[in-house]
Protein backbone atom coordinates (compact mmCIF):
# COMPACT_ATOMS: atom_id res chain seq x y z
CA UNK A 1 0.00 0.00 0.00
CA UNK A 2 1.35 3.36 -1.03
CA UNK A 3 0.83 5.95 1.66
CA UNK A 4 0.17 9.62 1.29
CA UNK A 5 0.09 10.33 -2.44
CA UNK A 6 -0.56 13.89 -3.51
CA UNK A 7 -3.46 13.92 -5.97
CA UNK A 8 -4.53 16.37 -8.66
CA UNK A 9 -8.15 15.68 -9.58
CA UNK A 10 -9.44 16.84 -12.97
CA UNK A 11 -13.21 16.81 -13.36
CA UNK A 12 -15.74 17.81 -10.71
CA UNK A 13 -18.61 15.54 -11.65
CA UNK A 14 -19.91 12.78 -9.37
CA UNK A 15 -16.67 10.75 -9.55
CA UNK A 16 -14.14 13.61 -9.29
CA UNK A 17 -16.04 15.18 -6.38
CA UNK A 18 -16.24 11.85 -4.55
CA UNK A 19 -12.49 11.29 -4.99
CA UNK A 20 -11.87 14.71 -3.39
CA UNK A 21 -14.29 13.91 -0.60
CA UNK A 22 -12.89 10.42 0.14
CA UNK A 23 -9.13 10.83 -0.55
CA UNK A 24 -8.24 11.57 3.09
CA UNK A 25 -10.07 8.42 4.20
CA UNK A 26 -7.58 6.45 2.05
CA UNK A 27 -4.57 8.37 3.40
CA UNK A 28 -4.08 10.65 0.41
CA UNK A 29 -4.05 14.39 -0.02
CA UNK A 30 -5.69 16.42 -2.79
CA UNK A 31 -3.36 19.26 -3.79
CA UNK A 32 -5.25 20.38 -6.90
CA UNK A 33 -8.81 20.11 -8.16
CA UNK A 34 -10.30 21.50 -11.36
CA UNK A 35 -13.60 21.56 -13.20
CA UNK A 36 -14.01 22.81 -16.78
CA UNK A 37 -13.76 26.50 -15.85
CA UNK A 38 -11.85 26.82 -12.58
CA UNK A 39 -9.27 25.27 -10.27
CA UNK A 40 -8.00 25.31 -6.72
CA UNK A 41 -4.36 24.50 -5.93
CA UNK A 42 -2.82 24.20 -2.47
CA UNK A 43 0.47 22.42 -1.84
CA UNK A 44 -0.64 21.74 1.75
CA UNK A 45 -3.87 20.09 0.60
CA UNK A 46 -7.12 21.74 -0.38
CA UNK A 47 -10.04 22.02 2.02
CA UNK A 48 -12.23 19.30 0.50
CA UNK A 49 -15.47 20.17 2.29
CA UNK A 50 -15.22 23.89 1.59
CA UNK A 51 -14.29 23.33 -2.06
CA UNK A 52 -17.18 20.92 -2.67
CA UNK A 53 -19.54 23.34 -0.95
CA UNK A 54 -18.30 26.14 -3.20
CA UNK A 55 -18.85 23.91 -6.27
CA UNK A 56 -22.44 23.30 -5.14
CA UNK A 57 -23.18 26.91 -4.32
CA UNK A 58 -21.27 28.83 -7.00
CA UNK A 59 -20.50 26.25 -9.69
CA UNK A 60 -16.73 26.78 -9.47
CA UNK A 61 -14.08 25.02 -7.37
CA UNK A 62 -11.67 27.96 -6.98
CA UNK A 63 -10.26 31.15 -8.47
CA UNK A 64 -7.46 29.64 -10.55
CA UNK A 65 -7.45 28.77 -14.23
CA UNK A 66 -8.17 25.01 -14.84
CA UNK A 67 -4.63 24.58 -16.30
CA UNK A 68 -3.17 25.44 -12.89
CA UNK A 69 -4.28 22.03 -11.54
CA UNK A 70 -2.46 20.21 -14.35
CA UNK A 71 0.69 22.21 -13.65
CA UNK A 72 0.57 21.71 -9.86
CA UNK A 73 3.06 19.60 -7.92
CA UNK A 74 1.27 16.25 -7.56
CA UNK A 75 2.24 12.55 -7.58
CA UNK A 76 -0.88 11.21 -9.24
CA UNK A 77 -3.21 12.80 -11.78
CA UNK A 78 -6.80 11.57 -11.42
CA UNK A 79 -8.46 12.11 -14.81
CA UNK A 80 -12.23 12.20 -14.25
CA UNK A 81 -13.39 14.53 -17.01
CA UNK A 82 -16.25 13.34 -19.26
CA UNK A 83 -15.47 10.52 -21.69
CA UNK A 84 -15.00 11.74 -25.25
CA UNK A 85 -14.69 9.67 -28.41
CA UNK A 86 -12.28 9.90 -31.34
CA UNK A 87 -9.14 11.71 -30.18
CA UNK A 88 -10.30 11.38 -26.53
CA UNK A 89 -9.47 15.03 -25.86
CA UNK A 90 -8.96 16.83 -23.57
CA UNK A 91 -8.45 13.75 -21.37
CA UNK A 92 -5.66 12.36 -23.53
CA UNK A 93 -3.61 15.60 -23.38
CA UNK A 94 -4.04 15.70 -19.59
CA UNK A 95 -2.64 12.18 -19.39
CA UNK A 96 0.19 13.06 -21.80
CA UNK A 97 1.21 16.13 -19.75
CA UNK A 98 1.32 14.13 -16.52
CA UNK A 99 3.31 11.24 -18.02
CA UNK A 100 5.81 13.63 -19.61
CA UNK A 101 6.35 15.00 -16.10
CA UNK A 102 6.90 11.39 -14.91
CA UNK A 103 3.74 11.44 -12.81
CA UNK A 104 1.22 8.60 -12.44
CA UNK A 105 -2.22 8.78 -14.05
CA UNK A 106 -5.40 7.13 -12.77
CA UNK A 107 -8.28 7.29 -15.23
CA UNK A 108 -12.01 7.35 -14.62
CA UNK A 109 -12.39 8.72 -18.15
CA UNK A 110 -12.80 5.84 -20.64
CA UNK A 111 -11.78 7.82 -23.74
CA UNK A 112 -7.97 7.48 -23.66
CA UNK A 113 -7.89 3.69 -23.05
CA UNK A 114 -10.83 2.92 -25.32
CA UNK A 115 -9.87 5.10 -28.28
CA UNK A 116 -6.07 5.51 -28.01
CA UNK A 117 -4.82 2.53 -26.01
CA UNK A 118 -1.64 2.18 -28.08
CA UNK A 119 -0.77 5.86 -27.68
CA UNK A 120 -1.39 5.68 -23.92
CA UNK A 121 0.87 2.64 -23.52
CA UNK A 122 3.57 4.23 -25.72
CA UNK A 123 3.61 7.36 -23.55
CA UNK A 124 3.66 5.21 -20.42
CA UNK A 125 6.75 3.32 -21.67
CA UNK A 126 8.63 6.62 -22.03
CA UNK A 127 7.62 7.78 -18.56
CA UNK A 128 8.51 6.91 -14.99
CA UNK A 129 4.78 7.27 -14.34
CA UNK A 130 2.22 4.48 -14.54
CA UNK A 131 -1.33 4.47 -15.93
CA UNK A 132 -4.19 2.66 -14.19
CA UNK A 133 -7.87 2.60 -15.13
CA UNK A 134 -9.92 0.23 -12.95
CA UNK A 135 -12.71 2.81 -12.63
CA UNK A 136 -13.34 2.87 -16.40
CA UNK A 137 -14.98 -0.58 -16.39
CA UNK A 138 -17.75 -1.63 -14.02
CA UNK A 139 -17.56 1.18 -11.45
CA UNK A 140 -16.83 -0.31 -8.04
CA UNK A 141 -16.21 -3.83 -9.35
CA UNK A 142 -12.51 -4.83 -9.49
CA UNK A 143 -12.46 -6.24 -13.03
CA UNK A 144 -9.22 -4.93 -14.54
CA UNK A 145 -7.16 -5.74 -11.46
CA UNK A 146 -8.66 -9.24 -11.36
CA UNK A 147 -7.63 -9.78 -14.99
CA UNK A 148 -4.17 -8.48 -14.05
CA UNK A 149 -3.97 -10.86 -11.09
CA UNK A 150 -4.95 -13.80 -13.27
CA UNK A 151 -2.65 -12.47 -16.01
CA UNK A 152 -4.40 -11.47 -19.27
CA UNK A 153 -2.99 -14.51 -21.09
CA UNK A 154 -5.02 -16.77 -18.77
CA UNK A 155 -8.31 -14.99 -19.47
CA UNK A 156 -9.89 -16.15 -22.71
CA UNK A 157 -12.98 -13.95 -22.65
CA UNK A 158 -14.68 -11.28 -20.60
CA UNK A 159 -18.38 -10.60 -20.86
CA UNK A 160 -20.98 -8.94 -18.78
CA UNK A 161 -23.76 -6.53 -18.12
CA UNK A 162 -21.82 -3.29 -17.88
CA UNK A 163 -24.42 -0.56 -18.23
CA UNK A 164 -26.74 0.01 -15.30
CA UNK A 165 -29.13 2.30 -17.16
CA UNK A 166 -29.83 -0.21 -19.92
CA UNK A 167 -30.13 -3.00 -17.38
CA UNK A 168 -32.55 -1.01 -15.24
CA UNK A 169 -34.74 -0.39 -18.27
CA UNK A 170 -34.75 -4.03 -19.44
CA UNK A 171 -35.39 -5.45 -15.99
CA UNK A 172 -38.23 -2.98 -15.32
CA UNK A 173 -39.79 -3.70 -18.70
CA UNK A 174 -39.67 -7.43 -17.99
CA UNK A 175 -40.92 -7.19 -14.40
CA UNK A 176 -43.71 -4.68 -14.92
CA UNK A 177 -44.69 -5.26 -18.54
CA UNK A 178 -44.21 -1.56 -19.29
CA UNK A 179 -43.07 -0.09 -22.60
CA UNK A 180 -39.56 1.18 -23.24
CA UNK A 181 -40.67 4.85 -23.37
CA UNK A 182 -42.45 4.65 -20.00
CA UNK A 183 -39.57 2.93 -18.25
CA UNK A 184 -37.11 5.40 -19.75
CA UNK A 185 -39.17 8.30 -18.39
CA UNK A 186 -39.24 6.61 -14.97
CA UNK A 187 -35.47 6.05 -15.11
CA UNK A 188 -34.93 9.71 -15.95
CA UNK A 189 -37.14 10.78 -13.02
CA UNK A 190 -35.07 8.56 -10.71
CA UNK A 191 -31.80 9.93 -12.08
CA UNK A 192 -30.85 6.46 -13.36
CA UNK A 193 -30.97 7.67 -16.96
CA UNK A 194 -29.66 10.97 -18.26
CA UNK A 195 -31.81 13.46 -20.16
CA UNK A 196 -30.02 12.26 -23.29
CA UNK A 197 -29.76 8.50 -22.71
CA UNK A 198 -28.25 7.71 -26.13
CA UNK A 199 -24.81 6.74 -24.82
CA UNK A 200 -26.36 4.13 -22.51
CA UNK A 201 -29.33 2.75 -24.45
CA UNK A 202 -27.53 2.52 -27.80
CA UNK A 203 -24.85 0.37 -26.19
CA UNK A 204 -21.95 2.82 -26.68
CA UNK A 205 -21.01 2.96 -23.00
CA UNK A 206 -21.03 -0.83 -22.65
CA UNK A 207 -19.04 -1.12 -25.88
CA UNK A 208 -16.32 1.28 -24.64
CA UNK A 209 -15.91 -0.85 -21.52
CA UNK A 210 -15.61 -3.99 -23.65
CA UNK A 211 -13.09 -2.26 -25.92
CA UNK A 212 -10.99 -1.49 -22.83
CA UNK A 213 -11.26 -5.14 -21.70
CA UNK A 214 -10.30 -6.38 -25.17
CA UNK A 215 -7.26 -4.08 -25.09
CA UNK A 216 -6.26 -5.46 -21.69
CA UNK A 217 -6.75 -9.08 -22.83
CA UNK A 218 -4.74 -8.44 -26.00
CA UNK A 219 -1.86 -7.03 -23.94
CA UNK A 220 -0.61 -4.88 -26.81
CA UNK A 221 -0.77 -7.61 -29.48
CA UNK A 222 -3.70 -5.88 -31.10
CA UNK A 223 -5.31 -2.52 -30.43
CA UNK A 224 -9.07 -2.05 -30.39
CA UNK A 225 -11.19 1.09 -30.59
CA UNK A 226 -14.93 1.66 -30.59
CA UNK A 227 -14.97 1.32 -34.38
CA UNK A 228 -13.96 -2.36 -33.99
CA UNK A 229 -17.01 -3.14 -31.88
CA UNK A 230 -20.22 -4.69 -33.19
CA UNK A 231 -22.80 -2.71 -31.19
CA UNK A 232 -26.58 -2.91 -30.90
CA UNK A 233 -28.55 -1.12 -28.17
CA UNK A 234 -31.81 -1.92 -26.44
CA UNK A 235 -34.11 0.55 -28.20
CA UNK A 236 -35.35 -2.17 -30.56
CA UNK A 237 -36.35 -4.56 -27.76
CA UNK A 238 -40.14 -4.42 -27.35
CA UNK A 239 -42.14 -5.67 -24.37
CA UNK A 240 -43.49 -8.45 -26.61
CA UNK A 241 -39.98 -9.92 -26.93
CA UNK A 242 -39.44 -9.86 -23.16
CA UNK A 243 -42.80 -11.64 -22.72
CA UNK A 244 -41.83 -14.41 -25.13
CA UNK A 245 -38.49 -14.80 -23.37
CA UNK A 246 -40.20 -15.01 -19.95
CA UNK A 247 -42.62 -17.72 -21.19
CA UNK A 248 -39.54 -19.80 -21.88
CA UNK A 249 -37.80 -19.10 -18.53
CA UNK A 250 -35.48 -16.57 -20.10
CA UNK A 251 -34.96 -12.85 -20.19
CA UNK A 252 -33.07 -10.30 -22.27
CA UNK A 253 -29.96 -8.46 -21.10
CA UNK A 254 -27.62 -6.04 -22.85
CA UNK A 255 -24.51 -8.22 -22.82
CA UNK A 256 -21.05 -7.10 -23.88
CA UNK A 257 -18.41 -9.61 -24.92
CA UNK A 258 -14.69 -8.96 -25.26
CA UNK A 259 -12.05 -11.37 -26.52
CA UNK A 260 -8.72 -11.01 -28.31
CA UNK A 261 -10.69 -11.36 -31.54
CA UNK A 262 -13.21 -8.60 -31.07
CA UNK A 263 -16.04 -6.95 -29.25
CA UNK A 264 -19.76 -7.52 -29.47
CA UNK A 265 -22.50 -5.73 -27.55
CA UNK A 266 -26.18 -6.45 -27.99
CA UNK A 267 -29.40 -7.65 -26.38
CA UNK A 268 -29.07 -11.38 -25.65
CA UNK A 269 -31.27 -14.17 -24.36
CA UNK A 270 -30.19 -15.48 -20.97
CA UNK A 271 -31.93 -17.84 -18.53
CA UNK A 272 -33.81 -15.87 -15.84
CA UNK A 273 -31.78 -17.46 -13.06
CA UNK A 274 -28.42 -17.05 -14.80
CA UNK A 275 -25.64 -15.09 -13.12
CA UNK A 276 -25.73 -12.63 -16.01
CA UNK A 277 -29.41 -11.83 -15.43
CA UNK A 278 -28.70 -9.18 -12.79
CA UNK A 279 -31.55 -6.78 -12.10
CA UNK A 280 -31.81 -3.03 -11.73
CA UNK A 281 -28.67 -0.94 -12.05
CA UNK A 282 -26.44 -3.77 -10.90
CA UNK A 283 -23.53 -4.79 -13.14
CA UNK A 284 -21.76 -8.10 -13.58
CA UNK A 285 -18.55 -9.16 -15.27
CA UNK A 286 -17.87 -12.78 -16.13
CA UNK A 287 -14.33 -13.92 -16.86
CA UNK A 288 -13.50 -17.16 -18.65
CA UNK A 289 -10.11 -18.36 -17.50
CA UNK A 290 -7.85 -21.21 -18.54
CA UNK A 291 -7.10 -22.60 -15.08
CA UNK A 292 -9.63 -21.02 -12.76
CA UNK A 293 -12.86 -21.72 -14.62
CA UNK A 294 -15.48 -19.03 -14.71
CA UNK A 295 -15.35 -16.04 -12.36
CA UNK A 296 -18.35 -13.82 -11.75
CA UNK A 297 -17.90 -10.37 -10.26
CA UNK A 298 -21.00 -8.32 -9.61
CA UNK A 299 -21.81 -5.11 -7.84
CA UNK A 300 -22.45 -1.44 -8.40
CA UNK A 301 -21.31 -0.38 -11.82
CA UNK A 302 -21.72 3.36 -11.37
CA UNK A 303 -22.12 6.10 -8.80
CA UNK A 304 -19.77 8.71 -7.33
CA UNK A 305 -18.45 7.02 -4.16
CA UNK A 306 -18.48 3.55 -5.81
CA UNK A 307 -16.38 4.66 -8.76
CA UNK A 308 -14.18 6.83 -6.52
CA UNK A 309 -13.40 3.71 -4.48
CA UNK A 310 -12.05 2.10 -7.68
CA UNK A 311 -9.98 5.24 -8.42
CA UNK A 312 -8.53 5.30 -4.90
CA UNK A 313 -7.91 1.55 -5.09
CA UNK A 314 -5.79 2.21 -8.20
CA UNK A 315 -3.90 4.97 -6.37
CA UNK A 316 -3.08 2.42 -3.68
CA UNK A 317 -1.79 -0.08 -6.28
CA UNK A 318 0.75 2.34 -7.78
CA UNK A 319 4.37 1.35 -7.39
Amino acid at each position, binding site marked *: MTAGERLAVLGAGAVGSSVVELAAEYGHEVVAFADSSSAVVDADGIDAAATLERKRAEGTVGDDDPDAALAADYDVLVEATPTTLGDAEPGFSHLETALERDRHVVLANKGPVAERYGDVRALERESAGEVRFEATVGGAIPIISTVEDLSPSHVTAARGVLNGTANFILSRMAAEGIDYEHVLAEAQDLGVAEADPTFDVEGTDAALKCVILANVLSAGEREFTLSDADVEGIT*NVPGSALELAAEDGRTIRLVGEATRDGIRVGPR*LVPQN*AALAVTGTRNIAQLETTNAGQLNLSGRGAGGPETASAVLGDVGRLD
Partner: protein
Amino acid sequence: MTPTLGSDAETEHGDDAEQSSRPRGDIDDAEREPQPHTIRLELADEPGQLLAALEPISENGGNLLSIFHERGNVTPRGRIPVEVDVEATPDRFESIVAALREGGVNVVQAGAEHYAEEVVVLLVGHLVDTDLSDTLRRIEENPATSVADFSLNAPEGRKDTSSARLRIATRSGETTAALALVREIAAEKELHVVEPLAGGAL
Protein backbone atom coordinates in the same frame (compact mmCIF):
# COMPACT_ATOMS: atom_id res chain seq x y z
CA MET B 1 -38.98 -30.77 -23.49
CA THR B 2 -36.06 -30.84 -21.10
CA PRO B 3 -36.30 -28.20 -18.39
CA THR B 4 -33.96 -25.52 -19.66
CA LEU B 5 -33.36 -23.46 -16.54
CA GLY B 6 -29.79 -23.60 -15.43
CA SER B 7 -28.67 -25.69 -18.34
CA ASP B 8 -26.49 -24.66 -21.25
CA ALA B 9 -27.87 -21.57 -22.97
CA GLU B 10 -27.00 -22.53 -26.45
CA THR B 11 -27.26 -26.22 -26.82
CA GLU B 12 -29.69 -28.54 -25.16
CA HIS B 13 -29.94 -32.13 -26.09
CA GLY B 14 -33.32 -32.84 -27.55
CA ASP B 15 -33.69 -36.29 -26.07
CA ASP B 16 -33.79 -36.90 -22.33
CA ALA B 17 -32.91 -40.57 -22.55
CA GLU B 18 -30.06 -39.86 -24.87
CA GLN B 19 -28.73 -37.17 -22.61
CA SER B 20 -28.65 -39.41 -19.57
CA SER B 21 -27.07 -42.37 -21.33
CA ARG B 22 -24.35 -40.50 -23.17
CA PRO B 23 -21.90 -37.91 -21.91
CA ARG B 24 -22.46 -34.57 -23.59
CA GLY B 25 -20.06 -33.39 -26.23
CA ASP B 26 -19.43 -36.99 -27.27
CA ILE B 27 -20.22 -36.14 -30.86
CA ASP B 28 -18.08 -38.79 -32.51
CA ASP B 29 -19.97 -41.61 -30.83
CA ALA B 30 -23.29 -39.95 -31.65
CA GLU B 31 -22.27 -39.90 -35.32
CA ARG B 32 -21.46 -43.61 -35.38
CA GLU B 33 -24.21 -45.07 -33.24
CA PRO B 34 -27.39 -46.29 -34.93
CA GLN B 35 -30.43 -44.24 -33.91
CA PRO B 36 -34.12 -44.75 -34.57
CA HIS B 37 -35.60 -42.57 -37.31
CA THR B 38 -39.13 -42.20 -38.60
CA ILE B 39 -39.77 -41.81 -42.32
CA ARG B 40 -43.18 -40.79 -43.63
CA LEU B 41 -43.85 -41.84 -47.21
CA GLU B 42 -46.77 -41.51 -49.59
CA LEU B 43 -47.20 -44.41 -51.98
CA ALA B 44 -49.38 -44.86 -55.05
CA ASP B 45 -52.09 -47.47 -54.43
CA GLU B 46 -50.53 -50.04 -56.80
CA PRO B 47 -49.11 -53.54 -56.23
CA GLY B 48 -45.38 -53.73 -55.41
CA GLN B 49 -45.07 -50.12 -54.29
CA LEU B 50 -44.45 -50.92 -50.65
CA LEU B 51 -41.74 -53.48 -51.41
CA ALA B 52 -40.04 -51.02 -53.78
CA ALA B 53 -40.00 -48.48 -50.99
CA LEU B 54 -38.51 -50.85 -48.42
CA GLU B 55 -35.66 -52.21 -50.56
CA PRO B 56 -33.44 -49.08 -50.34
CA ILE B 57 -33.59 -49.32 -46.55
CA SER B 58 -31.93 -52.72 -46.26
CA GLU B 59 -29.67 -52.05 -49.25
CA ASN B 60 -28.20 -49.04 -47.43
CA GLY B 61 -27.68 -50.75 -44.10
CA GLY B 62 -30.83 -49.66 -42.31
CA ASN B 63 -32.54 -51.91 -39.77
CA LEU B 64 -36.31 -51.93 -40.31
CA LEU B 65 -38.11 -51.63 -36.96
CA SER B 66 -41.77 -51.25 -37.93
CA ILE B 67 -44.12 -50.35 -40.78
CA PHE B 68 -47.43 -48.60 -40.32
CA HIS B 69 -49.38 -48.85 -43.56
CA GLU B 70 -52.45 -46.60 -43.41
CA ARG B 71 -54.52 -48.15 -46.19
CA GLY B 72 -57.74 -46.67 -44.90
CA ASN B 73 -56.38 -43.13 -44.82
CA VAL B 74 -55.87 -42.05 -48.43
CA THR B 75 -54.44 -38.57 -49.09
CA PRO B 76 -56.37 -36.04 -51.27
CA ARG B 77 -54.12 -37.04 -54.16
CA GLY B 78 -55.13 -40.67 -53.77
CA ARG B 79 -51.90 -41.83 -52.15
CA ILE B 80 -51.48 -44.06 -49.13
CA PRO B 81 -49.45 -42.74 -46.18
CA VAL B 82 -46.86 -45.12 -44.75
CA GLU B 83 -44.81 -44.60 -41.64
CA VAL B 84 -41.58 -46.56 -41.40
CA ASP B 85 -39.34 -46.76 -38.36
CA VAL B 86 -35.73 -47.45 -39.20
CA GLU B 87 -32.60 -47.80 -37.12
CA ALA B 88 -29.47 -46.46 -38.81
CA THR B 89 -26.40 -44.34 -38.23
CA PRO B 90 -26.94 -40.71 -39.28
CA ASP B 91 -24.87 -41.00 -42.47
CA ARG B 92 -26.55 -44.25 -43.49
CA PHE B 93 -29.91 -42.69 -42.79
CA GLU B 94 -29.09 -39.91 -45.23
CA SER B 95 -28.19 -42.47 -47.89
CA ILE B 96 -31.50 -44.24 -47.29
CA VAL B 97 -33.54 -41.06 -47.73
CA ALA B 98 -31.54 -40.11 -50.82
CA ALA B 99 -32.02 -43.60 -52.33
CA LEU B 100 -35.78 -43.48 -51.65
CA ARG B 101 -36.08 -40.12 -53.38
CA GLU B 102 -33.96 -41.30 -56.31
CA GLY B 103 -36.25 -44.28 -56.68
CA GLY B 104 -39.22 -41.92 -57.06
CA VAL B 105 -40.70 -42.56 -53.60
CA ASN B 106 -42.45 -39.53 -52.14
CA VAL B 107 -40.72 -38.90 -48.78
CA VAL B 108 -42.88 -36.51 -46.77
CA GLN B 109 -40.83 -36.35 -43.63
CA ALA B 110 -37.58 -37.97 -42.59
CA GLY B 111 -36.30 -38.44 -39.09
CA ALA B 112 -37.11 -35.66 -36.65
CA GLU B 113 -34.92 -37.57 -34.19
CA HIS B 114 -32.05 -36.63 -36.39
CA TYR B 115 -31.69 -33.29 -34.61
CA ALA B 116 -29.45 -33.39 -31.58
CA GLU B 117 -29.32 -29.80 -30.32
CA GLU B 118 -31.59 -26.85 -29.90
CA VAL B 119 -31.17 -23.13 -29.96
CA VAL B 120 -33.77 -20.54 -28.99
CA VAL B 121 -33.76 -17.12 -30.65
CA LEU B 122 -36.09 -14.14 -30.73
CA LEU B 123 -36.90 -12.20 -33.87
CA VAL B 124 -38.19 -8.64 -33.58
CA GLY B 125 -39.58 -6.39 -36.29
CA HIS B 126 -42.20 -6.37 -39.02
CA LEU B 127 -42.41 -10.13 -38.99
CA VAL B 128 -45.75 -10.54 -40.72
CA ASP B 129 -45.13 -7.95 -43.42
CA THR B 130 -41.78 -9.54 -44.25
CA ASP B 131 -43.39 -12.91 -45.03
CA LEU B 132 -43.16 -14.91 -41.85
CA SER B 133 -43.86 -18.21 -43.58
CA ASP B 134 -40.95 -17.57 -45.94
CA THR B 135 -38.71 -16.95 -42.90
CA LEU B 136 -39.73 -20.26 -41.34
CA ARG B 137 -39.55 -22.14 -44.63
CA ARG B 138 -35.97 -21.03 -45.24
CA ILE B 139 -34.91 -22.35 -41.85
CA GLU B 140 -36.73 -25.63 -42.60
CA GLU B 141 -35.15 -25.91 -46.06
CA ASN B 142 -31.68 -26.02 -44.54
CA PRO B 143 -30.98 -29.75 -44.09
CA ALA B 144 -29.23 -29.14 -40.75
CA THR B 145 -32.03 -27.11 -39.13
CA SER B 146 -35.70 -27.46 -38.32
CA VAL B 147 -38.15 -25.19 -36.50
CA ALA B 148 -39.19 -27.24 -33.47
CA ASP B 149 -41.43 -24.63 -31.91
CA PHE B 150 -42.64 -21.19 -32.86
CA SER B 151 -44.46 -18.50 -30.91
CA LEU B 152 -45.60 -15.09 -32.20
CA ASN B 153 -46.40 -12.08 -30.01
CA ALA B 154 -47.98 -9.25 -31.99
CA PRO B 155 -49.73 -7.02 -29.46
CA GLU B 156 -50.27 -4.16 -31.91
CA GLY B 157 -51.55 -6.32 -34.74
CA ARG B 158 -49.80 -7.19 -37.97
CA LYS B 159 -48.86 -3.63 -38.98
CA ASP B 160 -46.62 -2.88 -36.03
CA THR B 161 -43.49 -4.40 -34.54
CA SER B 162 -43.98 -7.93 -33.33
CA SER B 163 -41.77 -10.57 -31.73
CA ALA B 164 -41.34 -14.25 -32.36
CA ARG B 165 -39.62 -16.98 -30.40
CA LEU B 166 -38.12 -19.80 -32.45
CA ARG B 167 -36.85 -23.02 -31.00
CA ILE B 168 -34.63 -24.39 -33.72
CA ALA B 169 -33.51 -28.00 -33.68
CA THR B 170 -30.15 -28.54 -35.30
CA ARG B 171 -27.80 -31.37 -36.05
CA SER B 172 -25.00 -31.91 -33.64
CA GLY B 173 -22.49 -29.04 -33.78
CA GLU B 174 -24.64 -26.99 -36.15
CA THR B 175 -26.05 -24.35 -33.78
CA THR B 176 -23.50 -21.74 -34.87
CA ALA B 177 -24.44 -22.32 -38.49
CA ALA B 178 -28.13 -22.17 -37.58
CA LEU B 179 -27.64 -18.80 -35.88
CA ALA B 180 -25.73 -17.53 -38.89
CA LEU B 181 -28.64 -18.54 -41.12
CA VAL B 182 -31.14 -16.75 -38.88
CA ARG B 183 -28.91 -13.65 -38.86
CA GLU B 184 -28.66 -13.71 -42.64
CA ILE B 185 -32.44 -13.92 -43.13
CA ALA B 186 -32.99 -11.24 -40.48
CA ALA B 187 -30.49 -8.84 -42.06
CA GLU B 188 -32.18 -9.23 -45.42
CA LYS B 189 -35.61 -8.52 -43.90
CA GLU B 190 -34.39 -5.82 -41.50
CA LEU B 191 -35.40 -7.83 -38.45
CA HIS B 192 -33.53 -7.83 -35.14
CA VAL B 193 -32.25 -11.08 -33.70
CA VAL B 194 -31.88 -11.64 -29.97
CA GLU B 195 -29.47 -14.55 -29.70
CA PRO B 196 -28.43 -16.67 -26.74
CA LEU B 197 -24.82 -16.60 -25.58
CA ALA B 198 -22.45 -19.18 -26.94
CA GLY B 199 -21.08 -21.99 -24.83
CA GLY B 200 -21.64 -22.09 -21.10
CA ALA B 201 -21.90 -18.33 -20.68
CA LEU B 202 -24.48 -17.83 -17.99
